[in-house]
C-alpha cells in the first residue's frame, strides 16, 4: 500500500515542515517514505509544495501526478491540486484563507479554519500544525499519537513552543472530526 500527500501553500506557511513531520512519523512507524519539495527558482516567495509518499514497499517513482490526498493551505494550491487528487482521498482545506471548495464529490473534503484556530491558541504560525493534525485525524494515514510525537521532536530544540503546538494539534484534530 502506498499513499501520497500533497502539502501546498505559500512560502512562510510552514509547508515543508509539516510534510517533514509526517514523513518522519511514517519512518518511525517503519514505512518507506519520500519527502519531495518542489524547489523553485533560486529566489524567494511564491508558492511552496511538498509531496510525501508513504509505502510499505520500496518507493518507485517519487514523481506523482495524482496524489492520494491534499492539504491545501491557500487558494491557488487548492485550485491547482484539487482536480488531480485520487478519488477517495482527503482534501483538507484551510478555510480561514480559502473561500472556495474543491468541486469534487468523489473526495473527502474537510474544512478546517487553520489560521483562526491557530490564532485562538496564540500564534497564527501554528496554522500548519493545526492542518497537519486535522489531516492525520481525518485520513488516519498514520497513528495520530505517532505524529504528535514527531511534532514534539521537531520542536525539541525550542521546547517552549511545544505546549502551544500540542494545543494546536488538538484543535486541528477536533475540527477534523467535527466536520
Amino acid at each position, binding site marked *: 500500500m502506498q499513499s501520497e500527500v500533497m502539502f501546498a501553500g505559500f512560502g512562510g506557511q510552514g509547508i515543508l515542515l509539516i510534510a517533514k513531520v509526517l514523513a518522519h512519523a511514517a519512518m518511525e512507524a517503519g514505512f518507506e517514505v519520500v519527502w519531495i519539495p518542489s524547489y523553485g*527558482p533560486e*529566489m*524567494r516567495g511564491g508558492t511552496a509544495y511538498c509531496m510525501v509518499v508513504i509505502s510499505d514497499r520500496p518507493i518507485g517513482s517519487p514523481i506523482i501526478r495524482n496524489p492520494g490526498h491534499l492539504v491545501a493551505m491557500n487558494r491557488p494550491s487548492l485550485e491547482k491540486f484539487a482536480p488531480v487528487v485520487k478519488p477517495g482521498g482527503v482534501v483538507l482545506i484551510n478555510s480561514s484563507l480559502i473561500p472556495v471548495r474543491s468541486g469534487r464529490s468523489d473526495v473527502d473534503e474537510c474544512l478546517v479554519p487553520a489560521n483562526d484556530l491557530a490564532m485562538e491558541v496564540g500564534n497564527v504560525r501554528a496554522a500548519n500544525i493545526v492542518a497537519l493534525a486535522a489531516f492525520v485525524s481525518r485520513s488516519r494515514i498514520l497513528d495520530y499519537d505517532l505524529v504528535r510525537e514527531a511534532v514534539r521532536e521537531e520542536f525539541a530544540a525550542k521546547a517552549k513552543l511545544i505546549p502551544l503546538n500540542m494545543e494546536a494539534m488538538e484543535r486541528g484534530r477536533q475540527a477534523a472530526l467535527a466536520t
Partner: protein
Amino acid sequence: MAKGKTFKRPEALRDCPTHYCPGCTHGVIHRLVAEVIDELGVRGRTVGIAPVGCAVLAYNYFNCDFQEAAHGRAPAMATGIKRVRPDLMVFTYQGDGDLASIGMGEIVHAANRGEKFTTIFVNNAIYGMTGGQMAPTTMPGQRTSTSPFGRDAAQVGMPIRVAELLASLQTPAYIARQTVIKPKYIARARKAIHKAFSYQLANRCFSLVEIVSTCPTNWGMTPLDAVEWTEKTLLAYYPPGEIKTPEAAEER
C-alpha cells in the same frame, strides 16, 4: 499651492512586477539605471548584461537589448561586444558574488584594459539568489549559511573593497561607490551612474559604480532594519564617494 514634483516609471524600465523580495534595493538600482538611459537618450543602442544572481532576470525588467552572462563573466561579454561594436552603450549589472568572487579575474582585466563599458556593481555582502552564502564582501562576524558562526577574518580574510582594489590599477577609470538605502543617497547614486555612462559615451574609460545594497531576506531582517544595518555597518566599511576619476589618474 505646493511646488511638487512628478514621478513616474522611466521608459527604459518595463511596466511589470519584479521577482525581488519586499524592500530589496535591487529595484531602486534598476530604476536609476533606466532613468539615466532615458536621460541620455541611448536606449536604442544600449545592451545590458544580466549576471547570474538575483538580477539574472533583469532582462525582463529593462526595456532595451540584453544579454545574459554566465556567473562572473559579464565583463568578458561586455568586452566582446564593445570591441566589435564600439557604437553600442554597454553596461553590466553584477552582484558581489558574481563580480568579486568567481568574476574577479574578468573585472580586474576589463578595468585594466580600460574597456569602454560600465559596470553597475551591486554589493549586498551576500549571495542572494542561492540562499545567503558568504561573499568576499561579507562583513566580519556576519552570519551566512556558509559562515554560520559569523565570518571569521582570521580564517577567510577581510571583506574585499572592490572599488579600491580596481582603483589601484594604473589605467584611467571612473570608479565610484554609492548606496540607495535613502533618498539622499539615491540622488548621489544616480549622479554617479550618469557620470559613468557619460564617460563611456565619450569613449573615455572604463567606469564602475559600486552600489551598496540590501538583502533583507538573507540577512534575516526587515527592510527597515536592513537599511539601518547597511548605514551603520556596511557604509562604515564601504564608504560612499568617488574613488577614482580618469582626470585624476591622468594627472598622476
